[in-house]
């Protein structure tokens, strides 16, 4: 009975709305494609076109036309006169309509190439709730993005992150939260007054692994984002840290110091068996799998300072990956495996660096001074990371080409350790 009650409580708890993130674009895009997303016809509790336009704008690839500049507002293809949009130098046009009402909304969207005067796609959706309408709007942005760039959009994905709010007595209340990729619909998954850190998404986007000190020492927990069901999967003596899901979702690479100092282990989530991947008296931590699951990159100070190393997931002799600078840590791969994002020390500043794994070219994509926790969007288009701005913990999302940057802040308190979810299944 107790177990059932716990489950029910977690269900309700999962619904707790959290304080939202505010997004502002701090560096605009040059050379972005002009697109007009006309406000949808019909009545809807969400501004569908507004959500779509904001998504496209945040990618850095598009420059949506302000609604105030639109001469006409068609809602379906038959009403479109392309001359209106050529006069405004638009390359693409999206129009749509919402009909029905709560419980049964219907949406219709059409996308056009203004220059050629051709349709590029037409889609229909149904949505039950306001929440569904938001999700549908992100999905529409994904379809438009893919139709125009050839790459899968990541607007329908989510981000998980840690929030911290310090109370008057100096104690910090921390929470694991999950929100839409635009910061919308934030929900608290777990909260504690003991430290919580190091979130990792399961590859199916259903579960989070993280480290919680709720039992007065670090242990690794896995929690279902939808049901709230939660279990402790690693609680060895010493550090139980840095969980990272394997691409097949069956294992977690973790840091354990049970044998005296931190080494990389792989934990079978079902059986809880662990096997060692590294054995070295130095610090080995922050494992991250290659997308093919064959190797693991990790942070080690075996060379005297923290640098990134790579080792076969089966174990063996690690190879050093980074040679630039005196501090490189917490590396993670882009989904195509071509890039590694990491924390890099540049003089006195900590910034986000990106290593091209083929050419070995290294560039920094952030300005510091205290940047950390980079995570690629699943389509590789953006990197989200944590930073300090005017004494507060904030998030930035920067386009992979560095052209656009946006800041995500909480109304009060710090936000940190962002992790971008995988693509939803389609």
């Amino acid at each position, binding site marked *: 009975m*107790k177990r059932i009650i716990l489950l029910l409580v*977690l269900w309700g708890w999962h619904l707790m709305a959290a304080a939202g993130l505010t997004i502002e674009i701090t560096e605009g895009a040059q050379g972005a494609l002009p697109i007009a997303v006309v406000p949808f016809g019909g009545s809807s509790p969400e501004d569908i076109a507004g959500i779509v336009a904001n998504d496209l704008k945040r990618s850095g690839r598009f420059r949506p036309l302000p609604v105030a500049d639109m001469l006409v507002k068609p809602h379906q293809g038959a009403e479109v006169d392309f001359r209106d949009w050529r006069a405004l130098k638009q390359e693409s046009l999206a129009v749509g309509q919402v009909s029905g009402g709560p419980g049964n909304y219907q949406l219709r969207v059409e996308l056009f190439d203004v220059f050629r005067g051709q349709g590029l796609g037409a889609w229909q959706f149904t949505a*039950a709730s306001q929440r569904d309408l938001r999700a549908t709007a992100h999905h529409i942005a994904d379809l438009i993005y893919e139709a125009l760039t050839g790459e899968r959009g990541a607007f329908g994905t989510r981000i998980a992150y840690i929030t911290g709010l310090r109370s008057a007595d100096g104690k910090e209340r921390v929470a694991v939260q999950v929100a839409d990729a635009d910061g919308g619909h934030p929900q608290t998954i777990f909260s504690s007054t003991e430290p919580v850190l190091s979130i990792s998404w399961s590859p199916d986007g259903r579960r989070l692994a993280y480290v919680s000190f709720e039992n007065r020492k670090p242990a690794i927990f896995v929690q279902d984002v939808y049901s709230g069901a939660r279990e402790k999967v690693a609680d060895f003596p010493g550090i139980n840290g840095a969980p990272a899901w394997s691409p097949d979702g069956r294992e977690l690479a973790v840091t354990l110091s049970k044998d005296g100092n*931190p080494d990389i282990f792989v934990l079978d989530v079902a059986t809880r068996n662990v096997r060692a991947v590294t054995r070295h008296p130095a610090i080995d931590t922050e494992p991250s799998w290659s997308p093919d699951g064959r190797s693991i990159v990790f942070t080690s100070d075996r060379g005297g300072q*923290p640098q990134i190393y790579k080792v076969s997931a089966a174990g063996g002799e690690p190879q050093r990956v980074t040679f630039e600078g005196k501090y490189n840590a917490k590396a993670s791969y882009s989904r195509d495996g071509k890039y590694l994002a990491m924390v890099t020390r540049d003089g006195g500043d900590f910034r986000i660096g990106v290593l091209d794994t083929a050419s070995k070219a290294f560039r920094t994509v952030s300005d510091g001074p205290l940047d950390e926790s980079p995570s690629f969007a699943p389509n590789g288009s953006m990197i989200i990371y944590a930073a300090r701005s005017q004494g507060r913990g904030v998030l930035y999302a920067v386009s992979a080409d560095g052209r656009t940057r946006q800041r995500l802040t909480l109304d009060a308190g710090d936000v940190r*350790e962002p992790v971008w979810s995988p693509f939803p299944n389609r």
Partner: protein
Amino acid sequence: MLNRTFALAAFAALALALGGCSSMQKTDGTEAPVTDATGAGAGGAGARGGRWSGGALDDPSSPLANRVLYFEYDSAELRPDSRDTVRAHGGYLAGNRGTNVTVEGHADERGSREYNLALGERRAQAVKRYLEAEGVSGGQVSIISYGEERPADPGHDESAWAQNRRAVLVY
């Protein structure tokens, strides 16, 4: 979708009704026994919630009153100015076998969090090894790292970081 929404709402209502049950408190992690031993700042603040055995430990003029040891950036080496403090604690613990201590390791906020968790553990271990060299039994000393998660000074400059790169002895 509608059904699911309804089901969730029902669960939410039930959860609200059961809000005070112990299961929730347990999972929430907030109702854990508060033994705040983070040593908020220098100077023996590690006393709260600790077990005091009286005598020398209570004497504010004793070297044992000093419970915080500071470290250089990315280093776990005991500084010369810390060694007298550790020796004093080592002598006390070696003479009081029934007394246990927890060494907490901490790091400043710069760089990545899990590396800092490992660095905090390395600092705590360095103190433990020094105590053992002074004749303290390994069983008397536990260690835990909080990494950068429990700063003594919440600031973001060198003076705050210097306060945060520390090990704290909690009796």
